């Protein structure tokens, strides 16, 4: 699927952007390489029971930028993502070693409030998972959890979140209808709105568009582009072109290890490791 049609011209500037090894082009965008570090993991190991799913991951994730995690199935992308908001805590037998620092705080420290952490680090799942409740109640779920009961305040938060996730115009006249009646793509944007409503700084997305049609996927990508200005985004994707299109940084995982991590521009045009190049050009994976 991802075989590069032609090898000459890679890394060259075209009139639209930079051509990549995976085909397609990188769009030019403002430089975020000097943004401060938001998430820092050091020698992070993660185990499911006796099985080691991550080995010694050391990575720096920049603030207000999009970092894409790529790699073959089962290489630990989702696992890594879940260590960042401690969703692995809900899996019996899961355990980590090493540190994950967010804003300089070790999130596995003894005094960390996990609920507060998850409010700060929101998560969007692979399969859209709205609650079987109304659209309004879906978005208001988070704020209500955290003690907001005032109707006017909730209405304001719901509207703001739906606007930020670019779905307000499609649902503003039917906030009381069930979220289950929305299309898959709308449901996924609703799930993003639901996350935005709790006021996160980081948004984790695990293949958020893999179950969607191309048009809905394009909308999600456009949304990620918008959100990038205010949020730190870490996205897992199976789709090489998508990673090239949406991300500023790319991390290539293989068998639980972080093989290469750098600017998307570099990874997709001039990777330092042979394995990365093979994966990106579709020669394997």
């Amino acid at each position, binding site marked *: 699927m991802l075989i590069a049609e032609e090898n000459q011209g890679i890394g060259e500037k075209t009139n639209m952007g930079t051509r990549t090894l995976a085909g397609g082009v990188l769009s030019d965008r403002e430089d975020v390489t000097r943004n401060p570090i938001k998430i820092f993991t050091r020698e992070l190991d993660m185990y499911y029971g006796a099985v080691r799913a991550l080995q010694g991951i050391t990575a720096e994730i920049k603030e207000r930028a999009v970092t894409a995690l790529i790699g073959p199935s089962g290489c630990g992308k989702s696992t890594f993502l879940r260590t960042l*908001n401690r969703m692995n805590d809900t899996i019996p037998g899961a355990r980590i070693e090493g540190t994950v620092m967010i804003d300089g705080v070790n999130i596995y420290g003894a005094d960390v409030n996990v609920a507060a*952490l998850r409010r700060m680090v929101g998560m969007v799942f692979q399969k859209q998972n*709205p*609650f*079987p409740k109304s659209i309004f109640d879906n978005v208001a779920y*988070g704020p209500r959890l955290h003690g907001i009961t005032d109707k006017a305040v909730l209405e304001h938060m719901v509207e703001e979140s739906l606007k930020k996730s670019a779905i307000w115009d499609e649902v503003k006249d039917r906030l009381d209808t069930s979220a289950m009646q929305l299309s898959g793509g709308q449901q996924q944007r609703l799930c993003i709105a*639901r996350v935005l409503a*709790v006021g996160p700084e980081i948004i984790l997305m695990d293949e958020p568009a893999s179950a969607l049609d191309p048009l809905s996927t394009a909308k999600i990508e456009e949304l990620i582009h918008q959100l990038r200005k205010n949020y730190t985004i870490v996205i897992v994707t199976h789709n090489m072109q998508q990673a090239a299109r949406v991300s500023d940084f790319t991390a290539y995982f293989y068998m639980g290890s972080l093989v290469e991590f750098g600017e998307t521009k570099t990874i997709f045009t001039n990777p330092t490791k042979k394995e990365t190049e093979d994966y990106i050009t579709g020669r394997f994976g």
Partner: protein
Amino acid sequence: MRHRLTKKSGNFSEWLIQKLLLLAGISSMLIMALIFVFLFKEAVRFFFTANPFDLIGKWVYDDWEGHYVFKMMWQSISEVPKYSLIPLICGSLLVAFPATVIAGVLGLGCAIYLSELAPSKVREILKPTLELLAGIPSVVIGFVMLAFIATFIQNTFHTKFRLNAFVGACGVALAVLPIMITIAEDAMRAVPKDLRDASYALGATKWQTVWGTVVPAAVSGISAAIILGFGRALGETMIVLMATGNAALVTGNIFSSVRTMTANIAAELGSVAQGSEHYYALFLVGAVLFTFTFVLNLVSEIVLNKMRQKLRM
């Protein structure tokens, strides 16, 4: 020669098994239909000799009062037999309703614990224990209620009657508890992990997730459990026969003796002359009971189906 892909694969024994299963399915439906027809055919005969209004009450001359009074009584052995269904329905509700409330509260708590909170080791012990509870013959529960719990309840609440609706309700609650827990727990376990994850990822605690996501998503299943439990409670016979005192009174007092529709049939049908008005009256009680529980089962089935659809969407 036929190709092996087009050759009929079924042989005689397979055909036979299919037909036998079909027969079993049809005959069980047929039996249901026959019970229904027989019950209602006999029940209708009551109206050949009696006034439909008798089912509510009768004007009877009262020697003490010296004038006619309207009596809502079930008094089948009497100079003027009275077949009012009111005290029986009243008794049935006064047992089944509190029983459902008790079993509902306990059962929901138990189901939440089993499906959401219990470590798998505890669950492995609790589930079979519950199934054992379901296997206790109701006569044993009735006996325990009558012999021990009734005294305890009388001493605690200082009730006038030792055997009363509340004692019966406690016993019936025990009898319907396992099925209610099973259905409610199934409903909660059927709530996809996705939804719990979504809730946790928004910063919800375990309890907030249970109460804000799992229980609302399973609400149809939980309702079905309660409705079905209520149906079972209405139909329960042996425990109420033993523990409620069997006085057919029209009352709202939960500590009063009552007689339920089921206990009434069980107590009287054995000694009644076949074909008498009394005999048909008892069938009528049975038909009313059947209708009650049939409707309740139907409603719970519809509610469960609705939930399955809702979660699938």
